[in-house]
Structures are given as C-alpha cells and as structure tokens.
C-alpha cells in the first residue's frame, strides 16, 4: 500500500527533527489521504514533549471550533481538511489532538465525534443526548426537510432496509412531492434527496447492478444509522397507523436489537488504532 511506502519516507524525515518544511516537500497534495500517515505512539510522545501544554490546548480548541463550523451543513468532515487547515505543523501529534477533541465534545458539549469511515477518515458529530418529544433543539422551528427525510427513512426501514427508488418516488407523489416538478418548499426534490441527503450520509443511493435501464435503490446512510432511533421512528409510524408498534414484529425486533458499537473518538480506542496503523 502506498501508505507504507510513505511511512518510511516520513519516518526518516521525522527522525531528523520536526522539520515542517521538509514535510511539505515530501508530502504532496493532500487531497486524498496517502499524504497523511498516522504517526506512531512513540512519535506522538516525542512530538508532545516538544510542545507546551498550552500550545496543545490551543490547537485542540481550534480543531473543536473548526469542526463546529464545518458541521453546520451536516456534511462529514474529512481528516485531511482538519490536518491541512488547522493542525498543520502539529500533525505529528494528530492522534493526541483528536483524542482530546473527542473528549471535549463529550464532556463539554454532550456530543459524540464519530469516525464513520475508517478507510477515508471522515467524521460526523452527533448528539449524545436524546431529544424529548415536544422540545426543539434550539428553539427554532424545525426544518421541513427533516419531515421529508423521515418519510424516506421510514419507507426504507419498514420495507426491510432496501427499497427501489421508484417506490420512494411513488409514495412521495402521493404526498404531492414530485421529482419532476419544482416543489415550493423543497425546490429540486431529486437533488435534495439523491444529492444532499446522500452527501450528509443520511441515505445511500446505490446503483442496482445488471439493470437496464439504470435503476437505483435507497438504503440508510451511516449518519442515519447513528442518529436515528428506530424505536422512536416505529412509535411515530404506529401513531399514524393507530397500530401498536409491536405489530410489526420484524421491524420491532430490528429496532430493539442492541446497536453495533460506533467508532467514537475517545481515549479508549484512538490509542489502540494508532498502533494498528
């Protein structure tokens, strides 16, 4: 893997001391990740020794603020961006910084920083706390797109996790939302659903192989898996149908199954993952 080759390059440059200029020469364009190799624990320790705690704290705070601003649109935040714009010459202690950032989010803001893609190193922010019915998060009226998203996620969930896009569009049509026409609230609906929601990782829009003409299907995205409570979803659906949520036994079972452990950025797992890389 190209990552390993890079490791030997950066290792030698690192041993010469933290020379950021040399790094800039060795590392090319950091659009994609191979330019940033995860430093080892010993390198991190050496890096930490060279800096004052105040400097590290300042860097941590900057990353926290960066993530907050980047999270406004709910698009995932790339590690490459964090390193390029904020961490910069402190990249040799990146694992330590990101670990502290995760702690700050959890303890100060009650949020979780989750790495949803360990291959491409992409993070999202989700809330640790549940929202109570009737209370809105920030006192402002909710975004109607949440309603649209809810409808789509419900259909996909109730239909077993995968749904042909035609089914979704047919149902939306009954709700007066047509992908061919401009909607007065949502605008270009097709773009919102297949582009915005997908980029935000709420949905996955996947091509079905061997179809002629081209067909796509919808699945839940990684952000939806983390953010959405299936039990609450089922409760609302039950309320709408005036049925007991448990009457959909299969879905109920899936909703109440214990969740898979997410890759939350905490002190517990960052140190372990560093040695693996």
């Amino acid at each position, binding site marked *: 893997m190209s990552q390993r080759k890079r490791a030997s390059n950066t290792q030698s440059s690192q041993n010469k001391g933290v020379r950021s200029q040399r790094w800039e020469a060795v590392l090319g364009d950091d659009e994609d990740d191979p330019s940033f190799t995860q430093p080892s624990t010993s390198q991190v320790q050496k890096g930490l020794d060279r800096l004052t705690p105040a400097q590290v704290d300042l860097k941590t705070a900057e990353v926290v603020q960066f993530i907050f601003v980047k999270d406004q649109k709910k698009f995932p935040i790339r590690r490459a961006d964090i390193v390029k714009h904020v961490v910069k010459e402190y990249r040799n202690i990146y694992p330590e910084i990101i670990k502290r950032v995760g702690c700050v989010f959890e303890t100060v803001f009650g949020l979780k920083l989750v790495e949803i893609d360990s291959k491409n190193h992409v993070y999202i922010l989700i809330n640790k706390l*549940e929202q109570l019915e009737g209370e809105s998060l920030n006192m402002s009226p909710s975004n109607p797109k949440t309603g649209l998203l809810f409808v789509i996620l419900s259909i996909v969930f109730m239909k077993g996790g995968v749904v042909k896009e035609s089914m979704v569009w047919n149902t939306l049509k009954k709700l007066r939302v047509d992908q061919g026409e401009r909607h007065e609230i949502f605008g270009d609906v097709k773009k919102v659903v297949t582009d915005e929601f997908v980029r935000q990782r709420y949905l996955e829009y996947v091509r079905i192989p061997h179809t002629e003409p081209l067909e796509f299907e919808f699945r839940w995205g990684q952000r939806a898996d983390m953010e959405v409570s299936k039990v609450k979803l089922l409760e609302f659906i039950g309320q709408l149908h005036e049925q007991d949520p448990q009457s959909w036994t299969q879905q109920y079972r899936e909703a109440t199954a214990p969740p898979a452990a997410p890759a939350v950025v905490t002190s517990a797992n960052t140190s372990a993952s560093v040695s693996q890389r």
Partner: protein
Amino acid sequence: MRRAIRGGDETAPPRQNGVPGGKGDGRAAERGDAAAAGADDDEAGCSPAEMQDEDNDPARRREIRSKYRDLINSVQQNREDMLSPTNNKLTDVLEEANKLFAEVRQAREAALDAQLLVLATDLGKEKASQLHAEGSAFDPSAFAEHLLSFMGLNRLEDEDEEEEGGGVSSGYLPQDAWQRVATRAQCCFRTAPSFHYMMGSFLAELPPPRQRVERQRKVPGREAKRIMPTQLRRMEESHQEATEKEVERILGYLQGYFNDDPTSPISYYEFVIDPTSFSRSVENIFHTSFLVRDGVARMYLDHDKLPCIAPVEEGEVEAGGTSSRQQCVISISPKSWKSLHTT
C-alpha cells in the same frame, strides 16, 4: 449452440440461412450462453433434415421472439398489477413462458427467455416479501394517506370519482404541512445542534464616506448602519450611574449618622454590614471605598484598634488630595460576615 452462431461453421451450412447476420447474435450469444447450454445440443450437425427445416424457419423464430418480447413488455408494464397478492398473473406469465421455451432452438430466443426469467423472479421476490408470515405488512400508500391526515389535509367534500390506481388524494394541504411532520419527527433524530454565533457574526466597516453628500450636520440616524453584534452599550451606562448614585446615598447616610451624634465614633463594620445580606454588605464596602478614595470620608482606628469611619469636615476637604494617602485592603468572607453581624 455456439457453433451455430460462428460464421464459418462447416458442419451446418443449411442452418446459416435461418440465422440472420452476426451483430445481434454476438451479444445474444453471451447472454444466452447459460440458457443455451441446456437447449438441444444434440442437434448440432447431424439431425434429420425435416427437423432442421422446421427449426430454421425464420418466420417461426421471429414469431417466438416476438411472443417473448410481448411477455416481457406485459410484465414490465403491469408490474404493480402483478404484484398484487390478489391474482395469479405472474403464474400465468410463467406458464406461457414455459410453453414458448419448448420451441426455443437458438441462443437469441433463449436470451429473451432469460431476460423474462430475471423479471419474473424479481417480481416473485417482491411478492414473497409481501407475504411475511409474522407481523403486519407495511403498505406505503396507506402510510402516505395517514401522513396526509397528520399534515392536516382538508379533504374535499365531494369526492365522487374513484381514485385511479396510485392516485393522489385531493384536498387542500396547509402551508405548514411538512413543518408539522418535521416537528414531530425531530425527536427521532439525535442531531448535534448547528453552531451559530449568538449575536450576529461580524463587524463590517462603514462604507467609505462620500464627499459629495450634503455638508450639513447629518442626523446620526442617516449614517449607514454598521452591522455589529448588538452592543450592550446602554447597560454599561446605567451601571455607571448606579454606582455613583449608590455612593452618594452612602455618603448621605454617613453624614446623617455623624450629624446625629458627632462625638461618638461610627464603627466601620457596624456601618457597612447588612445583617440580612452578605452581598449587600460587600456592596456597601465597595461604595464606601469610593468615599474614602474621593477624600470625603476618612477611616481611622479607635483606641481598641477597631476601624471607624467619619465624614470629612467641610473645611477639611482638600482639593487635589495632597494629604498622605494610605491604602488598605479589606476582605470579607461569608463566614466572617456571619460572625461579624452576630457580635
């Protein structure tokens, strides 16, 4: 079957007549391979002449292919219809296909048959998923109807016509329809709140002053407005006044007490301590310190070494404060405050 397709096949020249030119077949050969393998292999080469003729009849081949295409089209067009658990149309289609398949001889037809099979199995899978033995089924149309009701759809009174299959409920949907759904659905999401500055985001510079504008004194309101976070200016002013007022008030009290009994000293602590409120006491100390700083009150120690305070006589007030200045720091904590006011 592949041999039949390849151009230079020497064992069966008569068969070539029935097979039209290469381009369609190349593709068909790939797709039809799997299916074709099952079809009559023993026909290659040495079959009786009559049978060859019938199989080679191009009209017959075309007929079969067109029948297949019809079947495929009907499955595609009537998909929704076939999905319905109330009929057996899918089975009929499969039986039809079976009959046709008996006459398939060449890869091209077999390819169509394979395509039909793919469509049929897809439909079959869908139908099967509808038949979940346990739990109730989920019907997206019913879901949509319930949602519309939730959104507050005002169904029109006179709905005589039957809704077409998959038709839309008519009626008036209120403006905040989607808002309602969103508000209710919000609690299913554990979204992190979006970050935004509390009081506006940036300080913009005034646009460069235009010289050509009237030279008369402008009313402040006419100046271009700065975009600034709402300044808490006025708060500060009132705060300032409050302090001065308080200091004046304290001075008034001090002078009052002194005038009542000019000879007996006023114990400092007795003066500033408010037995009912610690914070009040601290405020009093704060305001009194202004009096001392401004030279209108003076503090001294009496013979018990307890601090006392007295207003400075009218004549003694010196402008500029050339008298020696001394400073001291007084600290007080709730504990000491308690012990002070109980004694």
